């Protein structure tokens, strides 16, 4: 054995390993169009979807690209027909919704779309064996059936005014997802090889790197001008900003501080999207301190929301006074409250919370002190929690901020406050009912404040069941005013989502975005309608 032989053996071995590796990677097809023009758009996002199957929750907030719902939201969040020809007919008791379906629509594999696909989609989601964690969206549904190939009837368990907003749910193909050979809804190939009726089809999903979509030439809504839509998955904010700068991306979501430099950049523009994405602190009724009405009201008055928007969000947000953002159609005007530290102190004095030796207030031997949890690693929530604690301190309330995982925090929710984030904009019922109704106490992470108020319960039920706009407005006004009187949560801010986009397309808009947003949120929510400038 000479040294040369050793080298040869080593080289051969490593080359073999490399070759085996290369051979294992199938070279997938796909069109190799060049980029840089206006007919292809490449965006950068932080999170990759877990699945592309609507049966497991993909696209439930709309704009799924691959699929259509019965209805859709326009730029102003008004419901418009999509796979249905018009808005649903609703029975007088509010429990039957009838949808008439668009004719002549095909899935991207050529198969026809019919009522059977709608029924299949909803029944599969509601099936106990389907692991769709969003299935509570359809908790009101008692049955769904096809009355004819172009008519679908939903029967509800109770009158539910917001139900139509849920039917933006994307519709899956029964022929593909429901066949015998492909019947594993939870782990089957429909999760990675979706087939829908939408404006785009998936051409390639290389997990961990990107998803590529191409325009569906047979789209019933007309062929999109943007032919190619690529979603690059880049977890790290700095790397995403870097790749945007290098010209690799046309658009990306960025934290406000990283987006700021693009404000003056001629080739790019910053778009701040309004959202329903709020941050708040739960004040559980079971804790003698946070359950005390005086403490709750004092905290609400002591907190400096404007300073949080400026300091934590870099101006990209607004103060929040309740679960609905201040520009929501159902926001109760007049419930805005400015910071008033003197009032906070007065409330506490009057209720018998007197400052102790260390400046922290005491009543009947109990210190005005509690722990405030936030999810580890969530910097935005941490910053909010620290600012909240510092504001509270000025009123004589001692808050210890602590990080924890879901598993650590959940068992403590009954006693300890938590800094939470939520917000789903289409209907006030979606945010208010789970967070405030007494029936939701202790159900998962709902009603974390263990809030139980007869007036609010009644108003929430009214808002849920009535389809009379006036009645609903009155009901949700009542809820918001009750919340101001005895706030079970301290609402802090509504945060804007910030995007940077190459200035090559005209009239870009954003919808009001939810807290939990996938690739459907952002200026590219309607990329199928984008038109180049000039």
């Amino acid at each position: 054995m000479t040294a040369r032989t050793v080298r040869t053996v080593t080289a051969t071995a490593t080359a073999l390993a490399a070759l085996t590796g290369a051979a294992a990677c199938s070279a997938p097809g796909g069109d190799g169009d060049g980029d840089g023009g206006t007919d292809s758009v490449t965006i950068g996002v932080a999170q990759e979807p877990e699945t592309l199957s609507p049966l497991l929750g993909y696209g439930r907030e709309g704009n799924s690209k691959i699929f259509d719902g019965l209805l859709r939201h326009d730029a102003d969040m008004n419901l418009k027909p999509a796979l249905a020809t018009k808005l649903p007919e609703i029975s007088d008791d509010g429990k039957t919704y009838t949808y008439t379906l668009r004719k002549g629509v095909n899935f991207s594999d050529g198969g026809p779309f019919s009522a059977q696909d709608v029924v299949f989609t909803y029944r599969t989601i509601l099936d106990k064996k389907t692991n769709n964690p969003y299935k509570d969206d359809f908790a009101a549904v008692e049955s769904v059936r096809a009355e004819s190939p172009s008519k679908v009837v939903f029967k509800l368990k109770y009158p539910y005014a917001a139900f139509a907003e849920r039917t933006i749910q994307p519709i899956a193909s029964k022929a593909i997802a429901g066949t015998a050979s492909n019947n594993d809804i939870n782990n089957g190939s429909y999760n990675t090889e979706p087939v829908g009726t939408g404006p785009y089809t998936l051409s390639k999903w290389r997990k961990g790197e990107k998803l590529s979509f191409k325009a569906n030439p047979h789209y019933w809504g007309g062929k999109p001008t943007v032919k190619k839509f690529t979603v690059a998955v880049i977890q790290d904010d700095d790397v995403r900003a870097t790749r945007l700068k290098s010209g690799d991306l046309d658009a990306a979501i960025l934290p406000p501080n990283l987006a700021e430099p693009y404000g003056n950049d001629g080739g790019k523009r910053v778009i701040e999207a309004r959202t329903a994405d709020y941050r708040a602190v739960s004040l559980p009724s079971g804790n003698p301190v946070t359950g005390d009405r005086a403490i709750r009201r004092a905290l609400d008055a002591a907190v400096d929301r404007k300073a949080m928007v400026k300091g934590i969000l870099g101006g990209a947000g607004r103060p929040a006074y309740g679960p609905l953002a201040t520009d929501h159609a159902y926001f109760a005007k007049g419930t805005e409250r400015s910071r008033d530290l003197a009032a906070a102190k007065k409330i506490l004095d009057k209720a018998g919370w007197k400052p102790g030796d260390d400046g922290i207030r005491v009543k009947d031997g109990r210190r005005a002190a509690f722990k405030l949890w936030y999810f580890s690693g969530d910097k935005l929530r941490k910053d909010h929690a620290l600012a909240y604690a510092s504001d509270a301190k000025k009123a004589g309330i001692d808050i210890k901020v602590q990080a924890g995982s879901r598993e650590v925090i959940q068992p403590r929710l009954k006693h300890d406050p938590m800094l939470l984030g939520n917000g789903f904009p289409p209907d006030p019922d979606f945010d208010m009912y789970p967070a405030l109704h007494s029936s939701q106490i202790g159900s998962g992470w709902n009603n974390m404040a263990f809030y139980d108020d007869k007036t609010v319960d009644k108003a929430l039920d009214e808002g849920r069941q009535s389809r009379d706009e006036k009645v609903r407005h009155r009901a949700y006004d009542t809820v918001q005013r009750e919340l101001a009187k005895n706030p079970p949560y301290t609402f802090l801010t509504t945060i804007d989502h910030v995007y940077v986009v190459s200035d090559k397309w005209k009239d870009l808009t954003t919808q009001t975005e939810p807290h939990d947003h996938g690739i459907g949120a952002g200026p590219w929510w309607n990329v199928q309608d984008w038109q180049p400038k000039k």
Partner: protein
Amino acid sequence: MKRELTARPAGRRALWAPAARLVGRRLLAAVPVLAVVTFGVFAVAAASPFDPVQQYAGSAGLNASQETLDQLRRNLGVDGPFPERWWHWVTHALSGDLGDSTALRQPVSQVIGERLGWSVLLCAAGFLFAIAAGTALGVAAARRRGGMLDRAVTSVSYTLEAAPPFWLGLLAIWLFAIQLDVLPAGGLTDTGSDAVTAGAVLRHLPLPALVLGVSQVPWFLLYVRQGVADALDEDAVRGARARGLSERTVLLGHALRSGLLPVLTLVGSRVPELITGALLVETVFSWPGIASATVEAATSTDFPLLAALTALATVAVLAGNLLADLLYGLADPRVALEEM
């Protein structure tokens, strides 16, 4: 001449047989090792505070009703004692069914099949670079110990050993993608293009491979430097010099050859470090390898995926050690493969 020609095949047979026996022995030994490791994974995952249901449901879990969460728990089959679930996994794995990944909503075999190749390609390229650069620089440094080059590469090596690959990755992107604009900042192909062409991969591979390689170079460099430096002091090398052989022959033919032996051991022992480094590098460069799946599997206590990936990593480490031992046996006639 004639004798040598006939003797060689005989010699080779003599070497192949022990080598084959060594491989066989290692394969047998791998079975209990794999069993213990996967059992350990199930035990650790069971003891971890993460709740698989919350992890599966993700953000949806924060809005789901208790009823839905309870149903998910039943469906996912995450209850029950872990030894039982381990046994269930092992028996199914042996029949070729690795189960389904709950986190990725895919069969485990598909998760691995789609991604493993790219990780292997990245690791192989990085590793080759590390060995080549480490050896070349190590020899150069050993040649003039205490010289400028030696001091420079040695101190840089110690710095690099302490530098996290994540940080190196960001630095490389800043330098090569932004400042110099010569290499793409991430991905496997151009972001706007789907086709995996050799050209595109060749342009996208160097940066992540370089970062991964550079993070491994110091180990090889310092080992080679030490090995060659020691060898240069040996009698054999002094003898060779005395015989008037060229510096090149002395350095590469004599000193490097004997100085390279410890490096072969290093090849095996660096594999775990390489895998860890690849996890970070893949994340930074959006490389579509196994890394993001590994992270996801760990944080979502995705038992089937976690067990399969750990078994895979174990196999890689065992194979690395086996390869090192075989090479050692081939390179050094004094080493008997039978004794390993």
